[in-house]
Structure formats: structure tokens, C-alpha cells
């Protein structure tokens, strides 16, 4: 635990919440009680005629300009100061790349291991590099008070540290299309030893040499958010009965009918924009760098969905 930074993101942010909420509560109660008192005390039944025609008071105006100004400036400064904690990554943080696409997350560690969940060691700060393959997504960890947009073509980052082992929600916070609400995964905080063990041998997106489970892969990569297994029409064509079926596609601006064979499926995974099946939007992100064995595993899986 010796790497624990001076302050965690949660420890930095929560006191700011307490300060602003506290001040707001006092102000709201003040306004409400004074208003209620006036309404009851000066109600027409008790006060048939107004007893004052005062239309202003310079000193009161000065007081209620100066005091709120000081208060909000304090809020501004405190908020800005603690915001900087979110922006300052502690030294020695574990680098992880989060790749967002419609509609899944993939986390890549040094050495190339990938996983659909964000596994982190307890007590060690993690620096997450945010990469988008398509539209703007949002990397949101409520438990750590951390959020940062994942903007295509832009280098954004966030950091956090888990102080206790456990599973924490990770949401996409920036609206990104049909399955936005399904773009949810978790941070899995493991004791440091378990994390090292997981990094070496644990289940990830690609097991070295082991037999790849196509269904697991399709779930992890987010394929199933758009491609159903039961024949229902989603954002993309269903996988059910897809293999060897005849599909009408647009290719190079021409409409033609092709058979969904091995080669067609492989191309559609790698470069989906090349042939768009009629009636579906051209929105699937490409996977030109996906390892061959993963593509093969996915195709085998698609063949099995009948």
C-alpha cells in the first residue's frame, strides 16, 4: 500500500460537495423561512393594508451583493483547487488504455493483455488513457467521482485509485446511440497479488494459445448489442441463420446479392463499411487490427447461431 497517493479523488471531491450543499441548505432554508414568515405575518387577513411602501434600501442591496459574492468566490476557488487533483496523476500510476466504441469498452494493459472489465490493483493509482473508435463516449466512475469524455481524435485521460477490493460501476456518460445505456461495465479492484496473478494468467479478451470462446468474445466486444441471437432486428443484422444466407448489400455504390460465407463474414468484421447490408445504417466501427484467431472464433460462433 506504500504507493497510495496523498489524496484519492473521492477524498478530494466529497468535502467540496459537503461545503456547497451545506451553504445551499442554509440559503434555501433562510429564503423559505423568511418567505413563509412574511406570507403568514403580512397575509391580508392580518394586514389588510400594507404598513410600508418602502421600495428599496441601498445598504441591504450592498449586503446581499457582497456576502453572496464572497460565498460564491469561495465555492469557485475550492472547486477549482480540488478539480486539479483530478487532473494531476500521481507518479508511478499503472497505465491502462480504455478503448470505447459503440457500444463496448475494452481495456488494454502494458504487454497487450486486453479485458472487457477494468481490473486494477488495490492501492495503486491507475492512469486511464481514453480512446474512442467512433463517436464521443464518457468514462464515468461514480464511486471515484471521476468522469472524462472519450473524444475521437483527442487524447484525454483520467486517474483514480481503489482503496478497497470490490466491484465498482463504470458507465458511458455521453449519449452515443441506441445501446448507450448498455455500455456499462465494472472496475474490478483486486488485492495487488491477485491482480499480478490475473495479469499473468487470468481470463482476458485473448488467452494465449488457448481455445477462444466465440460467444464470450462476441459479448466482450459488444457485438451482441446490435446483432441479436434470436432473429430479432437490431441495429445490425441478426446472427441467427446468417451464415450461408443470401443478403442484399451495397458495395461500391452498387446493390448486389451475396452469400454470407466465411470470407464475407471475415471482411465484414474487419472492414464493415465496405459492404453494407440493405436496411442497416453504416455505423459499425472497423476492426482492421483484430488478431486472426479472434476473427475466426467470431465467425465460428456466428456459424453456430441457427
Amino acid at each position, binding site marked *: 500500500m506504500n504507493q497510495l497517493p496523498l489524496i484519492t479523488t473521492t477524498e478530494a471531491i466529497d468535502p467540496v460537495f459537503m461545503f456547497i450543499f451545506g451553504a445551499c441548505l442554509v440559503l434555501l432554508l433562510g429564503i423559505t423561512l423568511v418567505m413563509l414568515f412574511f406570507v403568514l405575518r403580512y397575509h391580508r387577513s392580518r394586514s389588510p393594508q400594507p404598513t410600508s411602501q418602502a421600495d428599496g434600501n441601498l445598504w441591504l442591496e450592498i449586503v446581499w451583493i457582497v456576502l*453572496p459574492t464572497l460565498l460564491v468566490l469561495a465555492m469557485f476557488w475550492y472547486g*477549482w483547487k480540488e478539480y486539479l487533483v483530478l487532473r494531476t496523476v500521481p507518479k508511478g500510476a499503472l497505465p491502462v488504455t480504455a478503448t470505447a466504441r459503440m457500444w463496448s469498452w475494452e481495456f488494454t494493459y502494458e504487454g497487450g493483455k486486453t479485458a472487457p472489465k477494468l481490473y486494477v490493483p488495490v492501492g495503486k493509482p491507475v492512469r486511464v488513457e481514453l480512446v474512442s473508435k467512433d463517436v464521443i463516449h464518457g468514462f464515468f466512475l461514480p464511486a471515484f467521482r471521476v468522469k472524462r469524455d472519450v473524444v475521437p481524435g483527442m487524447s484525454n485521460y483520467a486517474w483514480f485509485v481503489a482503496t478497497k477490493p470490490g466491484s465498482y460501476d463504470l458507465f458511458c456518460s455521453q*449519449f452515443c446511440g441506441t445501446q448507450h445505456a448498455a455500455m456499462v461495465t465494472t472496475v474490478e479492484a483486486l488485492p495487488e497479488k491477485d491482480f499480478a496473478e490475473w495479469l499473468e494468467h487470468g481470463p482476458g479478451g485473448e488467452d494465449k494459445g488457448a481455445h477462444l470462446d466465440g460467444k464470450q468474445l462476441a459479448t466482450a466486444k459488444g457485438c451482441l448489442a446490435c446483432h441479436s441471437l434470436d432473429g430479432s432486428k437490431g441495429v445490425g443484422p441478426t446472427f441467427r441463420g446468417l451464415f450461408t444466407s443470401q443478403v442484399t448489400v451495397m458495395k461500391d455504390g452498387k446493390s448486389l446479392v451475396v452469400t454470407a460465407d466465411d470470407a464475407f463474414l471475415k471482411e465484414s468484421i474487419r472492414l464493415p463499411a465496405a459492404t453494407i447490408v440493405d436496411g442497416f445504417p453504416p455505423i459499425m466501427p472497423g476492426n482492421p487490427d483484430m488478431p486472426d484467431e479472434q476473427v475466426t472464433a467470431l465467425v465460428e460462433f456466428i456459424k453456430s447461431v441457427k
Partner: protein
Amino acid sequence: MASNAPVHHATGSSFWNDTGKTGITSWIFSTDHKRIGFLYFYSTFGFFLVGVLLGLLLRIELMAPGRTIMGPQTYNALFTVHGVVMIFLFIIPGIPGAFGNLVMPIQIGARDVAFPRLNLLSWWLYIIGAVIVLTSLFSGGGAPDTGWTFYVPFSSRTGTNVSLAVFGVFIVGFSSILTGVNFVTTIHRLRTEGMSWGRIPLFTWSLYATAWVQILATPILAITLVLVMAERIIGAGLFDPTRGGDPVMYQHLFWIYSHPAVYIMILPAMGIISDIIPVFSRKPIFGYKMIAFSSVAIAAAGSLVWGHHMFTSGMSDTAVMVFSFLTFVVAIPSAIKVFNWVSTLYKGSISLEAPMLFALSFILLFSIGGLSGLILGAAATDIHVHDTHFVVGHFHYVMFGGTAFAFFAAMHYWLPKFYGRRYAEKPAVVAWALMFSGFNILYFTMQVLGMQGMPRRYYDYLPEFANLNLVATIGSWILAAGLVIMLVNLFRGLWWGVPFEGNPWGGASLEWSVPTPPPTENFIEEPVVTHGPYDFNGVER
């Protein structure tokens, strides 16, 4: 309209019939500011009801986790349409178009606005834009599913009918600009004798500040929407990072308009409240100059705070600091207004009739919305609640609890004057109580959900959020029940109720000095103003 003709004032005729024309064309081609005001009133309020219906459907979907009544694509389209309809077709044009047109020229002693035909054109542009927006829902790739913010690159990729929808909003924008030009000119040039700047009612002052924002900010929205269309139709690539564009630039352009736009939405509402509270307290408004000045200050400073929508976007930390600072600056004039409104009650003679109840609840709801805005203005805390239900709750507190409640206050306060008939008081109070409670159950719960981390625009959510979502949905039904009672009571009264004659609220501004309902061109003889709008000496009630 003819069948609902109101009672005629003792002088015999009013703008409803004194031109001798009552057919539909005498309305949709009228240049009378009051008829145009009613065109705006019924069209914007109609869209408000459409937006409410969509909102209720969204809440039913969110009543329980998983699919309840619709799929994710439908849900995404519905929240987009709810936002577009409510913001561009109701809140922005609503108060200036309806009550600004009905009341403002009379308040300054004018026979009409400066450019009556331009005024009619504004309404036509609004209706044409609205029809285009509606067409986009049922044509092409279907209703847009981008959220009312149309963020790129998603909005340039989605197959839904975004281009047509933003074109409709583009046209509606021109209506807003022209109304702004018209009102600024009217308030500068058409004030009657004695109507000095220090005697202008605060509702008109707020319209004046709003009009400048409409003129200066709306063109930027128009340009931005053209760029979105260019992106989609000719693939301009301005916002596309794979071709050297920048999606965050779009967000700057969008919010340069859309943040000032929330002041277009709230300032006229604050003006209504500033006019109602003195009348029902029988006391001059406290701090007239400060309230008028703070409207202008909000309009000016509010134009410089757009970046607070983008603290997580990846813009520089320096920009975050500057925008956070300016955001807190704009909180101060809003606070000034609240303190002055409350002080107006002091030693007054307060009667809690429906307009006053809505006005007082405006102060509370706007305060809750404004104070939760401080959480969003501070950089550290905004990060956690940004893009969550906290923002949805905050926004509805200021826009629904603020602007729409002020709209309801104005309906109960001014519409009887223009119809010459009144509603029943008791059902109005019951409706208000239901709406006020349902409102808080709905939106306060949303703020709690946001604090717990529930993101916005989520069709489905984790089980941990289920209980509070159910509570919020029940709140939406209470709110809707109150709304129905309010509408039935109000319109039954306005169309068939007992006569509303003279000056029953005891208002001191000029609109209460003209016949009820007012004649075409408002004044029988040119008025000469000798006292301020909140000087109740000699005003009977």
C-alpha cells in the same frame, strides 16, 4: 374562436370583434399584437402539452429497469423530441411570443409593436419551422435520436432524420431573432408620454434584456446548425477528427448560443414574477433598479459562461477555471432578484390567489434550481454530476419550476384580462398544490439519482436505481393530474366563466387601465404616464 367569444366590456366591443372580422384568416393574417399573442399562446402551449405527453411516456419507460413500454431506439428518439419540442417550440418562444406580444405594447402605452407585419412573419416562421420539425419525426430515417444537443460526430453519423430537424430549428431561430428586433425597437421608440426608462414595468424590462440575447446569440445557433447539415449532406468534415476536424469545436459553437438561450428562457419568467408579487402584496417592488439592472447583467454575463457545459470534454484546464469563475459571477444577479422579491413581501398586504401562489413557488423552485447550479458551476463537483440525472433535475427546476410555473402564473394573471372572463379560484389552488408537490417528488428524486451516479439519457439502468425511479414516475403522475385540473378549470373559466371586469387584482401598470378585453389599438385616448408601475396609491381592489 368565434364560438368562444368572451363577454364584451361595457364599451361594447374589443379586439375579439371590433374590426368586424372573426374568421380564421382574421387571426392567422392579423397584425394586431394581441391576436398574434394568442396565436403564439395556443401554438406554444400546444407544443408544451405534446412535450408533457412525451415526458410522461419517458417516465413510464423508466418506471422499472429493462423494457417497460418501448425499445431503446424509440426511447432515444422520444427524449430527443421531448427536448427539441420543449426548448425550441415552447420555452424559448413561449413567454416573449405569447405574453410579450399580449402585454408589452400595452405596458408601455403603445398601440402595437413597432413592426406589426414583421411580428406576423415571426409567427409564420415559427409555425413553418415547427411543421418542418414535426415532419422530420415521420419521414426519412425517422425521428432524430441525438438528444436536443445534436452532438457530433454522432449526429453526423446517425441514420435518423437529423438534417430536417435542425433545418426546422434553424427556421424557428429566425422567428426568435425577428421578435427580438421588433421588441427592442418597440421599447425604444413607442413608449408613450411619461413612460421613462425608470417607469417601464419589470416584465417589459426583462423582455428588453431577452431581446438583445435573441438578436446576438441566435445567429450563432443558425450557423452551427448549417454546419451540422453541411457535415451530413456534403461531408464537410469540420467536426470530423479523421479529416482534421474537431468535435469539441461543435460543442463550443452549440453552447455559445444554447447557454445564453437558457436566459432567453428564464429572464421573461423573472419579469412576470417581478410584476405579480407587488400587485398581490399591494407594495412597490423592492429594488426596482437592481432588478432591472440584474436582468441586463444576467443577459451580458450569461453570454460568457457557455464552457461550463464542457468541463469533462477535454478542453484545457485553464478554460475550465475561467468558465467556472464566470459561472459563479452570473449567480449573483439571480440572487439579487430573489432577495428583492422576498423583501417586497415585507409589511405588505399579501393575498394568496392563484397567480401569487405560482409566483411564490417560482421563487422556491428557481432557488432550488439555482442553488443546485452552484454544484454544477464548481469544477470539482461538476465532474461527478455532469451528464447524470442531477443535471436533468437541475434543468427542470429552473426551466419547468422556473419558466413554466411563471407561464402558469401569467396565464392566471393576464388571460382573464384578455378574455374578460375568469376561472374558479378553488380548483386553481388545488391544481397548484398538486403540481407543486408532484414536481418536487419528480425532480428532487432525479437530483438524488444523479448524485448516486445514474447517467442521463439511459433507457435502462442498474437495479440499484430502481426504487427512486419508481418514486420519480409517481411524482410525474401527480404533476400531470394537477396540470389537467389547472387546464380544465382555467379554460372553462376563460371560455364560459363569470365576467372579469375592471381591475380586480389592483394592478397599477398600464395594461390594467385599458378596457377589458382591450380594444384593437388598446387605448381609447393616448395615455400619459404620471407614476411608476408599482405605485398603488389610489388603485382600488
